[in-house]
């Protein structure tokens, strides 16, 4: 190798090593402080019991609380994650289906849901429940 070629290869080696080394450090800092269970696994685990209740195909509605809906990015992410957890059931981001799965972060009573026309089918805790839409098919 000529001195110029050596210098060129050394340059690439040096910058590559610094770049990936810095990234390694960032990731390893995060890695040691990471939660025991990652966010996606934690969120989707809430929906595991729902899956066993649902059939192998079909469409289900989705309802979240207004506080969550205000944070658009998080609300979208949580809706996508609910779909990710419940596949192959198709989840639509609307309560206008016969059955509706919830993702509540604040306390919601079955009474208030009943007032809106939703009858509890089963509650799974952590804001997750399946309701039957009493108004479904009336229009």
């Amino acid at each position, binding site marked *: 190798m*000529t001195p110029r070629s050596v210098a060129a290869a050394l340059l690439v080696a040096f910058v590559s090593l610094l770049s*990936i080394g810095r990234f390694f450090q960032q990731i390893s800092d995060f890695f040691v402080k990471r939660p025991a269970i990652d966010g996606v696994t934690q969120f*989707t685990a809430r929906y595991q019991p729902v899956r066993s209740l649902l059939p192998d195909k079909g469409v289900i509605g989705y309802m979240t609380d207004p506080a969550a809906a205000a944070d658009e990015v998080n609300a979208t992410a949580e809706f*996508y994650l609910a779909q990710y957890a419940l596949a*192959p059931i*198709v989840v639509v981001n609307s309560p206008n289906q016969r059955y509706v799965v919830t993702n509540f972060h604040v306390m919601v009573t079955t009474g208030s849901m009943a007032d809106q026309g939703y009858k509890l089918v089963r509650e799974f805790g952590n804001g997750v429940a399946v309701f039957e839409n009493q108004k479904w098919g009336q229009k």
Partner: protein
Amino acid sequence: MGGFGGLLLCVLAGFCAVRALWSAPRHWSVHDPLRLALSPAVGFGLLSLVYFAVRVVLGQGNGLAVGGFAVLTLALTAGAWWRAGQSVPEAWKRSSAPIWLWIAFAIVAGIALATVLMIVVASPHGEWDAWSIWDMRARFLFRAVETGAPFNPLMEWSHLDYPLLVPSAVAGLWAWNGGEAQWLAAAVAILFLGSAVTVSVLALARLRSTTLGLTAGMVLAGTPLLTRNAGALYADVPVGYFFLAAVALGLLALQAEDGRPLAFLAGLHAGMAAWTKNEGLMFCGVLLLSFLVVIRSRSELGQRVRLLLPMVAGMLVFLAFVGHFKFHFAPANDLIAAGKSTSMGARLVDLPRYTMVFWSIVEGLLTFGDWFVPPVFVMGVWLGLQGLRRVESGAMLWPFVAASLQLLGYLIVYVVGSDRLEWQLQTSVERLLLQIWPLAAFSLMLLARDSPATEKR
């Protein structure tokens, strides 16, 4: 057999498919390391085809998909064995590289591997696009009991038109595993990353020199964005890998005595790019166009025309499946659908859109890769030190022209197709540049002069 067995079977199927086409004697041969580096991606491509055909087209169960892939692997093994009996020993004059360069490459590659492993352990489901698109589709393919369920129009937000190589391969591996296992999706992503680095090193070692091969390997393994994107379980690294492998195989075809099998393999890889992401469809056109345009002599023209047919034939293997998927299951691409809503013609002459896209790409290039110093500057200095090689044939310019045309294609799609241009540029320029990055780094190595001691031609 389990997920690990499924992975091994993919590598075996890929290796036998490559050897059945690009044959060699039955013993370990000089080009076998490169064949082995190509194997995982070819295996994933074949598994995804079988899985899609059995589960989606025929509407059959996971068991039949597993059995179908086992039969295909057996047939490919027999084909490779039979073709090996007719092959002559391979010759290759290996060029040497200094030991310190090998050590530097090993350290950079080792750190990249450790980093991507930490990412997938910490976030086994990957990032946003992984669980809202790629792994979501894998779950639908694996769990759904009815044909077409994964493509329900109610889920149009999940980009139902995106091709299926990655999700179908992951679902196929889950079928081998007998259940969903997130580490298999991570293994697919990491093997694509590894193949991008090793194919770059090994192909350049054959086309130019081991020194340039190792340099390209360090450039790719040392790019944090590539590692991060692989760990995110996105499909940009796989599609970028296919761009690189298609061109590398095309160049090897141009060097070979009978380049037709390698040209077929090159086309096969371009087809797999189209089966991975929609950008791959554009790449098929770019590959053929640049292959026929970057020609400097009449003899080159004749050689290219002879290799064109096998290259197109290779592409068609996967394009047939892409076509079936697009016509029977996928809705129109959102960019194309958006383009219909307003006048594409009006956008085509809208100069401010070009300016906006151009500067966004320039900005993306200047900050690309999360490198310590922007790679544009580093590679510029590197090229200055190495010097430009004298252009002797169109072949050495081909990869650079292909990468440039692909970038130009992205620019035009942004200009004419995007309804939300600013948002689209903000969220996708980096990833589109990443797709071209392995091919761009590879093409730079072909344009640079090498030291006389190691220069091959």
